[in-house]
């Protein structure tokens, strides 16, 4: 009697847990299905050859790509350098303050970053709709992530390797370059790639910093709007006609594909990070 009750409770509890798992799985499948279904009629080469002016995505894809390159150039070096400092040079006090700083920045809503970017860069600095302003705003969003992954990658380098290099009396820069960075590079690269995935899905920091245009992007940094994919989803989903929804769905599909590929590549590269430790004999 009592054991039946206990078995019953067990069943109910795990039934609820499996239901919760379904709550995770169903929406992701439903979202992908709805993107495919909405965009199906629009999925053809026209998307790549035409701009948003004629229901293509060429300018938006190029624009999103350009923004990613910009982030690689700005947030990449700054974030990696900052992470190296925190892992290898910072005193506990200073490291604690700087960590608090970047972790707090990571929690700042993206619209706040977009708003300040617009007010200061576009307006006060008279940059207008500006590629550079957009890159800086997106960099503020992904920097904490790049710093953190760099720091973690260096921390995970086996301590014995650091000891060996120190015991040999090598200068710190040499220790970094020859002993610590090589095994950390996969982890750092993985963080950078995932940072791109985060950035390419953002909208709020871009809306007012870079504006939007149907034209293909140029490398002009100032006074020149850029088209990008997330805006197409946002705008077209809220417009009334089926054709616009098709384009929105297609744009959503392209972003999602980019993000999943980037995350996948990031994971793949990241997996190499554990190799060094595995190679040392135990």
């Amino acid at each position: 009697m009592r054991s039946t009750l206990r078995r019953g409770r067990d069943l109910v509890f795990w039934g609820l847990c499996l239901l919760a798992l379904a709550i995770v799985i169903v929406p992701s499948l439903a979202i992908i299905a709805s993107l495919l279904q909405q965009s199906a009629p629009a999925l053809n080469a026209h998307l790549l050859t035409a701009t948003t002016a004629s229901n293509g995505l060429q300018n938006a894809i190029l624009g999103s790509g350009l923004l990613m390159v910009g982030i690689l150039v700005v947030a990449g070096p700054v974030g990696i350098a900052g992470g190296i400092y925190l892992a290898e040079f910072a005193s506990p006090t200073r490291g604690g303050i700087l960590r608090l700083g970047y972790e707090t920045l990571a929690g700042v809503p993206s619209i706040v970053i977009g708003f300040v970017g617009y007010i200061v860069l576009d307006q006060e600095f008279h940059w207008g709709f500006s590629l550079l302003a957009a890159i800086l705003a997106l960099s503020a969003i992904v920097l904490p992530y790049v710093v953190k992954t760099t720091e973690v990658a260096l921390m995970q380098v086996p301590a014995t390797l650091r000891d060996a290099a120190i015991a040999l009396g090598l200068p710190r820069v040499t220790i970094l370059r020859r002993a610590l960075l090589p095994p950390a590079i996969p982890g750092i690269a993985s963080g950078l790639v995932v940072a791109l995935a985060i950035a390419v899905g953002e909208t709020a920091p871009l809306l007012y910093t870079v504006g939007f245009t149907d034209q293909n992007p140029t490398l002009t940094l100032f006074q020149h709007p850029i088209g990008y994919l997330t805006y197409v989803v946002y705008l077209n989903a809220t417009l009334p006609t089926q054709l616009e929804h098709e384009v929105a769905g297609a744009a959503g599909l392209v972003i999602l594909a980019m993000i999943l590929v980037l995350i996948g590549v990031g994971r793949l590269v990241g997996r190499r990070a554990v190799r060094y430790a595995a190679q040392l004999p135990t």
Partner: protein
Amino acid sequence: MLMESRGTPPDVASAAVGEGAVAIQDLSVRFGSTQVLKGISAQIARGKVTALIGPTGCGKTTLLRALNRLHDQRPGFHLDGSILLEGSNIYARGTDVRDLRRRMGMLFQRPNPFPQSIAENVSLGARIHGLWARGEVKARTEGLLRDVGLWEAVRDRLGGTPFMLSGGQQQLLCMARALAVEPEVLLLDEPTSSLDPHSTGRIEELVASFRGSKTVVFVTHNLQQAARCADEVLFMMAGEAIEQSPVRAFFDHPGDERSRAYLEGRTA
């Protein structure tokens, strides 16, 4: 200092073998509030092999690492007393820490080659410290690899990764790396604890070959190994130096009751 040692063998030969190369004077180390070493005094004889032995956790490795100033980075590290290398305190202000570490070569419990090519592993330190001229790098790398007995195994893959080597070969490579910077003192922290018997034998042969030319401090938990390799024994227990004696004397007639208990496997 650096200039004097360039290209010439360490000045062990000019000084008498057997005298103190390293003098440890009333050395205490604590990390935060944990006292690890308590007032250790000892003389490490020049050109001889001194084995550091004692039960697990007695502070052997802490003492060894203190000789290379490897604790400098540890939180709460605090050191009293002094360690003199050829008469000068290595913890004195203004010490060239990097040159000190060059003079104190070190081998670790597990092989830890750099993620660089095999040749780079050997030559990196020597080139950074300005010990080798550009033209002689190749020949001296080969020489060292021959010295440690690794040359035949790696001659065809000098540019390749060291991680394809066996654990024993990696440790020999680390030995070549340590020797390349011409240290006066070699600190060995249980270097054979992860190796097979053959590689262990090879390392022990090498240590024996250093007699008279290098000062060796050898941490081991293996009493047979200490008996085989060492000239002197420094027996430690609970952070204190209990006894320092010539190796035969230590094993045959330990001078302290605690040493005797340890050798007989009794708990002290």
